[in-house]
């Protein structure tokens, strides 16, 4: 009886903590949505106007005045291709490290160490490099840059995942006459699919929000959403309504994506540390 009361007490407290945390996240986001539907006067009015006639002007602005649909497609293509390519070549490396301990542990650590470099020091040389190989303001240019940031995390995530798949599965396949590559493609990858998916989404989110390299390596043809949002911030003030509308448009796809594969994300993003 007492134990049960205690347990329920614990659950109630847990709920209270979770509700407070969720509100801390949710309220600012709701305020952003509200601001995206208001003009600049209402956005800054204190005491706030709780009920006003919502306007879609801010959304019209970002789609009609600035071609946010183009930026959206750019972001989608760049983030998507970089994530997929990173997944393919990252999974090969992760498989190799997981099964054969290739270069362990230095290879793994050296991969992570590339993430320690301050991006600011690299951005101008990378810009010069992209000009030389004529990839400035092209989609492959940014894809290539993102690939080098995505790969270390991909490998880290997937190593753990491949380690958790019993060796016996592929041995069995190989006894049945598969080559190792066939075993990898036909047996291991399908089993590893949830892990691959999680790593892919994780990369996608990183790429989707990346700013500094996107700013320097893109021009008019390849501008991505974060750079486009930043350009709403002018010397004459932030067009806060448009920024809010753009924020809503920017996070909507990743929010939906996250919602769909939330469970898989939670199961798989251990960065190779547990399993």
């Amino acid at each position, binding site marked *: 009886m007492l134990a049960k009361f205690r347990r329920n007490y614990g659950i109630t407290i847990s709920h209270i903590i979770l509700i407070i945390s969720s509100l801390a996240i949710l309220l600012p986001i709701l305020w952003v949505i509200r601001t995206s539907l208001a*003009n*600049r*006067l209402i956005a*800054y*009015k*204190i005491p706030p106007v709780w009920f006003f006639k919502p306007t879609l002007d801010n959304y019209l602005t970002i789609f009609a005045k*600035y071609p946010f649909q183009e930026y959206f497609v750019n972001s989608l*293509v760049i983030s998507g*291709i970089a994530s*997929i*390519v990173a997944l*393919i*070549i990252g999974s*090969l490396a992760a498989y190799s490290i997981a099964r054969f301990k290739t270069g362990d542990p230095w290879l793994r650590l050296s991969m992570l160490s590339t993430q320690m470099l301050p991006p600011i020091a690299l951005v*101008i040389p990378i*810009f*010069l490099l992209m*000009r030389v190989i004529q990839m*400035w*303001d*092209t*989609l*492959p240019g940014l*894809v290539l840059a993102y690939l080098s940031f995505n790969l270390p995390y991909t490998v880290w995530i997937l190593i753990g995942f491949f380690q958790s798949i019993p060796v016996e599965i592929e041995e069995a396949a190989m006894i049945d006459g598969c*080559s*190792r*590559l066939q075993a990898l493609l036909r047996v291991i990858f399908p089993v590893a699919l949830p892990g691959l998916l999680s790593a892919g989404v994780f990369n996608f989110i990183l790429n989707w929000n990346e700013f500094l390299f996107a*700013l*320097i390596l893109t*021009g*008019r*043809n*390849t*501008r991505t959403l974060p*750079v486009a949002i*930043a*350009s*709403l*911030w*002018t*010397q*004459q*003030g*932030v067009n*806060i309504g448009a920024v809010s509308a753009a924020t809503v448009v920017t996070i909507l796809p990743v929010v939906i994506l996250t919602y769909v594969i939330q469970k898989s994300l939670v199961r798989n993003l251990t960065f190779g540390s547990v399993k």
Partner: protein
Amino acid sequence: MTKRVITIFGLLLIVSMLLTACAKTEQPAADGAKEFDGVTINVMMEGVPDTEYVQALLDKFEEETGATVNIEVLNYALMHEKLVPQLTAAKGTGSYDLIVVDNYWVAEFNRAGWLMALDEKIAASDKVNTDVYLPSMMEMVGKYEGKIYMLPFYNYAMALVYRDDIFSDPAIQAEYKARFGKDLALPTTIPEYVELAEFMTRDTNGDGEVDVFGASMQGLRPDPTAMEFLNYLYSMGGQLYDTDGNVVLTQDVGVQALNYYVQNMKTAAPPGAPSYGFDEAFATVAQGKAFSYITYNWMVPVLDNPEQSQVVGKMKVTAVPGGVGLLGGWGWAIPNSSANPNAAWAFIEWVESFEIAKERALMGGAPTRTDVFRDADVLAKYPHYKDVEKIVGDSIMFPMQSRAPQIVEVLGRVISETIAGSMTADAAIQELIAESNNLADK
């Protein structure tokens, strides 16, 4: 097996390249004999109203010349970061054919040799005559060391914007007279302004909290606070450099101006002002919570827009107290790396022609040409442009120094440290003078 891996990798690269190859195809040249058929002019501009006015008129130019104009719009802070790597590109290989240059960057860009001298083009042109520009604008965003590199695009001279309804309120006037023994008048010196701003800081609804501040101010590092402070310095007779580039700021004047600036920040500005950028300071004014604001001269029309403001019809503009504010402005320039300098020049000729400049002004643009300032239609729409022309003429620009962005950074930091109390005004000005000497071009 490795072969396959490489094949897959290769295929993916090819696919992604193909994808972009499609996106980058140029439009084929159309028939007809227009001068710049099939030419694309790539322009980098800042996201401000004046840019929008140019965008609105673009069709005419494209119609006339057959060129396609691509304007890439970016925010102020990011422009510099983006332009610099671009400008270092070799001759004729850059991504931008035409750019706009803020007055801070003029010396920096020219000293680095990134901009094309326009003298020959101007001499050969029957459309461009630099005499029509206000001399102060031409000095700032036109010439550098005797050559012309730019044509002035728009001005952002600073002025004092204030609430006329409060200023002409008889009750306030009576209270002022009772307290100071003189009639309420517009301040003509910085000390008077600081005194007036403190007087205007008041609790109007009796809830025990100040709800109208005497001055809306922007203490954010580096440029918001540096720009604002220079109005105080200039109006009190101080300057950082003389026209030959020697440091002429004296400790006395500097400390005085800084003390008045900090005093105003503490006695008449909202408590959050040390962190305000333009946006927060503007919102304070637009929400009717400030009596005055030293800002761009063309803010009155913006504050008269009911979509953005609660003080419609209540604002007036006058010169910065002391009469000498900070002049700012942008100029059109062709980078040496421009791939299409001739088409870019044709665009400048068009956009800076009297007709287009006037049209831009009528849409709300900030003029740089005397003939536009004095045009009857323009004056009919914006009667206060008579005063603005004088303000632009009297204002002083930021010193023409190639390391101006760094000087602004130092200036912004020492002011912010003085406000935060981690430095005395004395030490701040000492450091400012020392650093100004270090960073001077000589």
